């Protein structure tokens, strides 16, 4: 920490600027993800989606936000007030602070200073490389596991049967899928040999900016990447795994009793989680900001994240909801064994062929 204080003031300016830009960008993405979701699902069901507010309904998120802001705030009489009030905050904060460690672009030069496009990192001119949190992935896992509290507390404190059932389902589901997701990440550790996200992204550079991606490095990481994405979708409770809020059986589950801005916070947390999960998948398996050189790094990063968000919406429009026992079976009896085997197979593959992309042997 003392080393941090000795840096020239430019670093603080850069740090604050990075935080502001990233935060505003994520907030805007979250707001317009709601619009995009309605549009995408609308088109997939041969409807138009929101059309009335602004040009092609572009002002819809703002109208929704204003509407929720001016709604009456209701706290149930029998609710446990403290937990009821803090639950939306606990749900929202971990989703946003995960972005502190995700690298969203290569280094840029401003006034002779090299600035890495990652919030929690500095460029050390003496060593000539970027220093960042060296347990970045674990940090993201930790934040993901804290997100459970928001939903569990919301379910319990509302003092309603539907909410409680939603909260219980959410916690069981998140704990089960966290394991498989964590094991899938271990294959990435095996490939990179480092827990720092900056190192992991740097390791994925390759010819055309594509061949180095862990998804294409070897067959084991390919499967691991897909399983990680599915598990992440399950962990953030999106369709087809949205059992905790299943509106047809649980009347929107844990947030049944919430209204006004507190409901909006849960809504934002859901979409922020989606953006975070897509960004993490991009960083770990899709090469981070690496891509063919005709676009700058951060544009590739944004493009990949948006593509994955589109995939989430696509999945939502395509698949029906799982039954609860099917969901548990999928997590414990399918994904967990597969990822366990994948860890061993990846290790064997690296022993036999090294960490080079598999098609480099063919060509």
């Amino acid at each position, binding site marked *: 920490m003392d080393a941090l204080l000795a840096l020239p003031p430019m670093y603080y300016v850069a740090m604050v600027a990075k935080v502001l830009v990233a935060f505003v960008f994520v907030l805007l993405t979250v707001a317009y993800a709601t619009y995009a979701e309605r549009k995408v699902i609308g088109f997939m069901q041969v409807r138009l989606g929101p059309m009335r507010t602004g040009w092609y309904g572009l002002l819809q998120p703002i109208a929704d936000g204003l509407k929720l802001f001016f709604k009456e705030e209701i706290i149930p009489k029998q609710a446990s007030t403290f937990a009821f009030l803090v639950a939306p905050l606990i749900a929202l904060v971990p989703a946003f602070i995960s972005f502190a460690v995700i690298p969203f672009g290569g280094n840029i030069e401003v006034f002779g200073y090299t600035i890495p496009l990652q919030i929690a990192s500095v460029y050390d001119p003496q060593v000539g490389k970027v220093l960042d949190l*060296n*347990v970045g992935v*674990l940090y993201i*896992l*930790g934040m993901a596991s*804290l997100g459970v509290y928001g939903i569990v*507390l919301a379910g*319990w404190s509302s003092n309603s049967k539907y909410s409680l059932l939603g909260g*219980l389902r959410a*916690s069981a589901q998140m704990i089960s899928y966290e394991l498989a997701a964590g094991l899938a990440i271990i294959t990435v550790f095996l490939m990179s040999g480092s827990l720092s996200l900056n190192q992991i992204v740097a390791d994925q550079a390759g010819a055309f900016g594509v061949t180095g991606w862990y998804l294409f490095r070897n067959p084991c990481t390919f499967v691991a990447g897909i399983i990680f994405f599915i598990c992440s979708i399950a962990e953030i409770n999106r369709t087809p795994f949205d059992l905790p809020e299943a509106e047809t059986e649980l009347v929107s589950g844990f947030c049944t009793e919430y209204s006004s801005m507190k409901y909006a916070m849960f809504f934002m947390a859901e979409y922020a989680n989606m953006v975070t999960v897509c960004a993490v998948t991009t960083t770990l398996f899709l090469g981070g900001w690496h891509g063919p050189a005709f676009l700058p790094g951060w544009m590739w990063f944004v493009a990949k994240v948006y593509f994955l968000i589109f995939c989430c919406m696509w999945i939502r429009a395509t698949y029906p909801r799982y039954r609860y026992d099917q969901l548990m079976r999928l997590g414990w009896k399918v994904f967990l064994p597969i990822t366990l085997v994948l860890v061993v197979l990846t290790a064997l593959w690296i022993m036999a062929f090294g960490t080079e992309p598999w098609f480099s042997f063919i060509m």
Partner: protein
Amino acid sequence: METLFFTIVAAVAVLSSILVITCKNPINSALSLVMTFFCLATFYVMLDAPFMAAIQVIVYAGAIMVLIVFVIMLLNIRSETGKRTNHAVAVSSILAFFVLFEACYFLFRSTPAKEGMGPLTSNVIEKIGHTELIGKAMYSEFLLPFEITSLLLLVAIIGAVILSKKKI
């Protein structure tokens, strides 16, 4: 700056750990305990042990406390309103007092180490990495205890399955 930061986090840690035992509602106590764990994780970061901090958050705050909250929710424990004093409380408070006394005694008795730093200084940790150091030590020097622990955990898992399932 570092001292100021430490003071703030330490104040939050002390406050939340007091709340753990004074809260009437068990869920609020559990939440305060999570807050305490979080402050401890911050201390680990300040002590150049980022891996410990991450594990503290993932395992204690993220997994164990979620299960505890789960149990509290399912058992539907009412808020403790009446005063309850029995022998267990008295004995445990006496024990806690002795532990505190012992800790204070050793704290005041201790003097700074004379030989200077050991092999694992902040510089070494920064260069090799905390995770790597722990991994190496665990799989070479402490392999036997590590394996015994994993066997114990396996036994515990099987025991839990047998206890919870009447028919296998």
